[in-house]
């Protein structure tokens, strides 16, 4: 059972205090978008074995959404950061690259 540190309140919350929100850094496609764009936004999800960026909500705590970088195979957590982030923080990306040299980046 995972532990993720909520970047808002600093609690090292266990999984039962969190609710999952699946893939992070999705770009919303609304009216005016093509079928392909909308399909990708709605349905095309990464499912990597390895580094993954996810949304989590500290639902039994401060109620805030945050993002986590995690290895889906080893469950190593590289870090958590606020949901109000367009992309992963540079230092986190550097840390992941150091831990996983073969990683191709978050996009």
């Amino acid at each position: 059972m995972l532990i993720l540190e909520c970047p808002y309140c600093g609690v090292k919350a266990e999984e039962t205090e969190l609710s999952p929100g699946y893939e992070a850094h999705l770009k919303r496609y609304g009216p005016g978008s093509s079928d392909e764009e909308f399909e990708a936004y709605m349905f095309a999800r990464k499912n990597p074995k390895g580094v993954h960026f996810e949304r989590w909500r500290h639902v039994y705590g401060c109620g805030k959404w945050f993002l986590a970088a995690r290895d889906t195979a080893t469950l190593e957590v590289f870090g958590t950061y606020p949901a109000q982030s367009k992309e992963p923080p540079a230092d986190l990306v550097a840390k992941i690259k150091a831990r996983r040299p073969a990683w191709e980046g978050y996009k």
Partner: protein
Amino acid sequence: MSEPRTALGGAAFDGFAEVREIGPLGMITLRAKADVPGLAEAVKAATGCALPAQRRIVTQGGKAAGWMSPDEYLLILPYAETDAALAAIGAALRGQHHLAVAVSDARAVFRVEGTKAAQVLAKLAPVDMARLEPGELRRTRTAQVAAAFWADGEGFTLVCFRSVAGYVMGLLSHSAQAGSELS
């Protein structure tokens, strides 16, 4: 008008720790960012307490101000003072983006007391009770429902939603049964 009734009418249970429902307490959910001008003064005026830091609760007499999230505070005060406090906060923060609403009636509040009170909570919440600091407000779950608690005097004060007060009373009573001490 009738007297306000708490969810359980002050239910109590004595085991290796004492559990009782308290209240009604006045409670206000105040949503605002910490840097909103006048926020600290408004909280002080309502509760006599300083603006709490991350995960803290500041208590002062029967009043308290707790940090709930980076933009949410829980103010605790006598039930009858809630409306006046809301009005005062509204006036003090006029023009500032904020939200203040009464939640006095949406909550149930319990006291768990005794030297082993922490053990009662240790059976229900995934919280390292030994590392819970004085004045720390911990939002978590107790078994299957949301709760918040903090150490206060000889025991803990626990807040949960009103509709599940009976469930939480059941949890606390089960966990406080004599003979089930953890140590």
